[in-house]
């Protein structure tokens, strides 16, 4: 399948796995989410770029998507917070965008056949050639994309959420955490700060011993891009630390914990990417509308039932969204409680993590 559209952002050629995101807002956070490394994103909402780009909403230091596919780029930006147009932002980061195509047709195709490899080109106009180029491009299955997005050395992150936008008050910092960066989003770090943690961010390849040497009160495992099965070294680290440190994982972090406990991951047909996925907390039976961005899931049945308890489930497709260890202080969710972008319904998980550590410490 091919589309002819109008380019924006950078010129050139870009390859990646094409996925769609159904969020009506939050394109900047999506672009700067390191989990999109290796992927090109189609936005289902047609008008994109309306409110521009601003420094405060960035989820990392740069955009990571390989390409950006939309129906229509806004001719102007209109928002008091805007500092730059989307077009300029993508140009600056050398990311190609395409607009003016039937994005719904593309999305329906992806829904039917699953996420596919794609190419955006401003050079080659022959659809046949482009299709074969895309087919020849590398797959993300079995590839460790984490090493491309993780930080090179450890650092302390001391910034909390901004006071505006009603994020709530910050708790006094009482505990220290090591957060393993597999492509961590800044709002996770801000949220951990807000919820009372001193946070040390470490590269994904940091060993269990190195982590223990920091003497943290807990371990956080971040989101990240690509195939979780390809990040064996991190699974290994996690396995060594289960039972030694209270642990909370998000997204790829959840998949790391799952694998460390013997579970298997598999690829969803087209993944979950959006801000509107209903998840049920099986303990309270309450529903939260969650922000999601993942292509792989931990298979429920592959987890050892005597060790692991399922805590959250996706109500759309009944896939696993969260579990905890029955004995050890370890829990994780597949979705994004840091909600950037997305609803703030899942903020309680950070509180839960704080209370877990507090209980261990006390």
């Amino acid at each position, binding site marked *: 399948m091919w589309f002819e559209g109008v380019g924006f952002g950078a010129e050139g050629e870009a390859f990646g796995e094409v996925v769609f995101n159904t969020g009506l807002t939050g394109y900047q956070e999506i672009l700067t989410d390191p989990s999109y490394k290796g992927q090109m994103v189609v936005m289902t909402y047609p008008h994109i770029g309306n409110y521009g780009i601003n420094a405060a909403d960035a989820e990392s230091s740069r955009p990571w998507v390989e390409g950006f596919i939309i129906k229509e780029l806004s001719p102007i930006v*209109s928002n008091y917070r805007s500092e730059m147009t989307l077009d300029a932002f993508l140009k600056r980061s050398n990311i190609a965008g395409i607009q003016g195509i039937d*994005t719904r047709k593309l999305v329906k195709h992806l*829904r039917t056949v699953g996420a596919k490899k794609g190419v955006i080109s401003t050079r080659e106009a022959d659809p046949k050639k482009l299709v074969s180029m895309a087919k020849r491009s590398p797959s993300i299955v079995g590839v460790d994309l984490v090493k491309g997005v993780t930080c090179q050395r450890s650092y302390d992150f001391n910034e909390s959420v901004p006071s505006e936008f009603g994020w709530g008050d910050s708790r006094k910092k009482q505990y220290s955490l090591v957060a393993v960066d597999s492509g961590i989003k800044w709002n996770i770090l801000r949220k951990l700060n807000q919820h009372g943690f001193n946070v040390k961010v470490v590269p994904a390849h940091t060993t269990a011993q190195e982590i223990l040497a920091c003497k943290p009160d807990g371990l956080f495992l971040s989101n990240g891009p690509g195939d979780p099965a390809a990040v064996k070294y991190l699974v290994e680290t996690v396995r060594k630390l289960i039972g030694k440190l209270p642990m909370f994982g998000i997204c790829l972090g959840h998949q790391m914990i799952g694998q460390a406990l013997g579970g298997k991951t598999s690829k969803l047909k087209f993944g979950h990417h959006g801000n509107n996925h209903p998840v049920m907390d099986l303990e309270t039976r309450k*529903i939260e509308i969650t922000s999601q961005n993942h292509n792989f899931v931990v298979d429920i049945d592959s987890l050892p039932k005597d060790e692991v308890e399922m805590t959250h489930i996706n109500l759309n497709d009944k896939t696993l969204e969260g579990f905890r260890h029955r004995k050890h202080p370890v829990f994780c969710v597949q979705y994004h409680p840091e909600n950037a972008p997305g609803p703030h319904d899942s903020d309680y998980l950070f509180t839960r993590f704080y209370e877990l550590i507090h209980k261990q410490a006390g």
Partner: protein
Amino acid sequence: MPKRTDIKKILIIGSGPIIIGQACEFDYSGVQAVKALKEEGYKVVLINSNPATIMTDPEFADATYIEPLTVEFLEKVIAKERPDAVLPTMGGQTGLNLAVEACEKGVFQKYGVEMIGAKYEAIKKAENRDEFKRAMQKIGLDLPKSDFAYTVEEAEKVAEKIGYPVIVRASFTLGGSGSGICSNADELRTTVRMGLDYSMVREVLIEESILGWKEFELEVMRDIKDNFVVICSIENLDPMGVHTGDSITVAPAQTLTDREYQRMRDAARKVMSEIGIETGGSNVQFAVDPRTGRMVIIEMNPRVSRSSALASKATGFPIAKFAAKLAVGLTLDEIPNDITKYTPASFEPSIDYCVVKIPRFAFEKFEGVDNRLTTQMKSVGEVMAIGRTFKEALQKGLRSLETKRFGFGADGKDKVFDLALKTREEYLGFMKSVPNDKALREKIFACAKVPREDRIFYLKYAFLAGYTIEEIYAQTGVDPWFLAQLKQIVDLEKELLDARGHKKVQEALLRRAKEYGFSDRQLGFCWGMKEAPVRAMRKKMGIRPVYKLVDTCAAEFKAYTPYFYSTYEAEDESNPSKKKKVMILGGGPNRIGQGIEFDYCCVHAVLALRKMGYETIMVNSNPETVSTDYDTSDKLFFEPLTLEDVLNIYENEKPVGVILQLGGQTPLNLAKALKANGVKILGTSVEAIDRAEDRDQFKKLLHKIRLSQPANGIASSLEEACEVAKRIGYPIVVRPSYVLGGRAMEIAYDQTSLKKFMKQAVEASGEHPVLIDKFLEDATEIDVDLISDGKTSVVGSVMEHIEEAGIHSGDSASVIPPFSIPRETVEEIVAKTKQIARELGVVGLMNVQYAIQKGQVFCLEVNPRASRTVPFVSKTIGVPLAKLAAQLMVGKTLKDLKFTEEIVPNHVAVKESVFPFVKFPGVDIILSPEMKSTGEVMGIDKDFGKAFYKSQEAAMSRLPRKGTVFISVKDSDKPKIAEIARQFHRSGFKIVSTRGTAQVLKDHRVPVQEILKITEGSPNIADWVRNKKMDLIVNTPSGKGPMLDEGKIRSLAVSFNIPCITTLSAARAALRGLQAVRDDELDVKSIHDYHGVKAAKG
């Protein structure tokens, strides 16, 4: 959580008549609620005074009461039905207010009825401004600075403290009545005085002005387990200062970052919890300062609303249906999403298109009305349009409005002040000259600032005049994002205009123009071509619309509900079937003369044809309606009802035919053009429609069956009109052809008034001539609805109007069966009507209007289509005429349907009209041939008096049972007034009159107190009204003129909610009504009992 089993029977309160601020959307929500509750196994009782609703059809609720929405009648229904619970959130503000009042009077407690959906305390907290403000402060939400006032003096103090301009809002009213923006103390005093009167609790809020801020609305739902979802966000194109109902609004919000949007979502969630809306849907409105992002909350409605209907149609998420299910204890995750089937309702819809809602106004109907848009709602209807982009949706919306526009200008209908730009040359001339015409430029710029119904076009003219986005933004507060989108349309339009004669360029631009929503008509204008060749060229190039699905999930999941909109893109999803199908054209936006009655008929056709096994295809543009519920038809196309859009669907779907005669004038206007394009029209032929509309052919027809008509003629100019007038003699009725609701129809008594009326009539009539009839004075008017299969005809009912001929039939009260005309005359009318039907070959419905003057029957007009009275007649006789008509149109006979004889009911039904005067202060309320009512109610009972009394009660113009009546009549009525006054006196009323009438009464020895006219000093009649020292006014107008004393009195009476009777015939009917209730207690009876029928199983 499982649904509740402790309640078995639930009462739903409807919203009553269509009024400004409350229209078909509550029929839509009511129908959904009834169906949803029955689906869950509950017994449903319904009360609603509006017969033109689908919800009051006997097959829906288990017991339906078409009774007045007052506590008195509500209690009677409760006493009879003994429901366990009442659901008050489906009937708009009317339903909510009635429930609050009943609760306060202890009715629910007395009968052990529980309020579900919204509790009394929650409603109070949401609706009472003071409580609301405190609640919002408690949860830390910002509000505009404000304080309450209970007197005019207090209001002035508060306003000074806050600083002008301030906004006045009355607590507990309908659709923002009694609200307004005041920039000085004078304006404040007037507005506050009115606001206090409208407020059920005599309270007004004086508020900091946040004019020009961005306005947003979230439609949200919450269930008993505190699960919360946002269904839709809406951003208004018109900034704060214009009532949301009068604003162009867009879904989803366009200019908020995720941070800002989530803050709004959090706020809405907190509001729901704090107000205590445990289950159901609500809307929460916010304003955002575009400079700083400061967000304040404006208000919340703890019920389904017009916005929730819009949100349902915009997303495919049926809010009312789910709200009803949540009210009985189900939770969102327990309800499946109908559209995807496999995912639950506990999610937030995502959409991959843009939705634009545009209000429809009717200012032309009200002389002297202030047409500026304010915080008080004035629109009578709305359209919604869906496109892949805002530009496409906006242009589709503008051509859906039925204002003869075909998009965002360049359609031959542009009018800059008095300058009409009918041709391409005129348009180009304007474009060329305006940037250099300083005076005109500035006038346009000034006009762009003031919100009026055509403001959107002045934004465009401002661009053409050379103003920039920044300048226009500074002047208007319309967000630059919207302005930039408009500018893109304007820029492309310039390219299109330049492409005239360049076939290659045209072809290159065509696709983009269609993507921008341009109609073929606009392209034709730009290229100096007619619509047809543009269409042909477009089709030849293979540029056709595709149809995309509205699926709640932006294509993430497979959708099973066939709800479509058109766009110009790659993939078509409509997947036409090979089944036998019928396409039904809906009525478009509500406006005066064209409303819910036609939607009722269309829905009936769909239901009947579906049952016969046809695939039904509904086309409509009105988001309030039941017809645009995706549940109603097999396939729903949310599209403009223009030739281009309808033909596109027709060609795509290839139905066996199209039904036009049920959707009112909108689809009927397309009849000829559709036929010319090879469309098969079902039912009465286009030729027959023409024969009835064409004056000459009509005359011949009447002559043939020996039926008289008033002396008449046709005219295309004033000279011709004067000629006709000379021939037939004044007074004359002037009316344009091919219009609905008596648009620009007037009675001229002399040449001066004829001059004035002809100008308007020629304008409204377009290329058709204006019809001139001799006006029949003191004649009784009769309406007849008939159904025919082409051979056999049956009269549904003969209706006698209470008001005399000369008052638009849509504005008169009408009665089944006739109450004053002799039986032979009724029989003659029935026979003649059948003859007309046979002569025309009517297949389906027909409506004929007659006048009887001194025993002689005159035929006034024949409408070979469904009329506004079809639902009223159907409910009265217990036969669903529109359903039968649809079946006749596909070949059934009346014999097949077992309806071959007229039904004479054993009861009396009165239809009364409801008027919007209260929204248009200062406008005279007298009735004329131009229709002004927005809706209707029905009173039904054993005899005329009771039925009439109920109809008045239902029309919210309650007849006082005792007190003071002010009587003042025109000279020609004076000989007849003494008898009426005497009866009022005998009924125990005190009578007051001004000099002229008082003298007549004294002469006839009727006790009367004489009071002063306005010009005679004080206290005068106006003071009496203001101090509410009278309970009823009988005032027949001597002639038109809001400036006259009498006009002021009538207008004032409306403001102070004193019932005002303007004809002697209505006064007589009122006396009979009063008589009836004095003699006997009023009772309630369900429609099911009247007709001995049962509801369908749930």
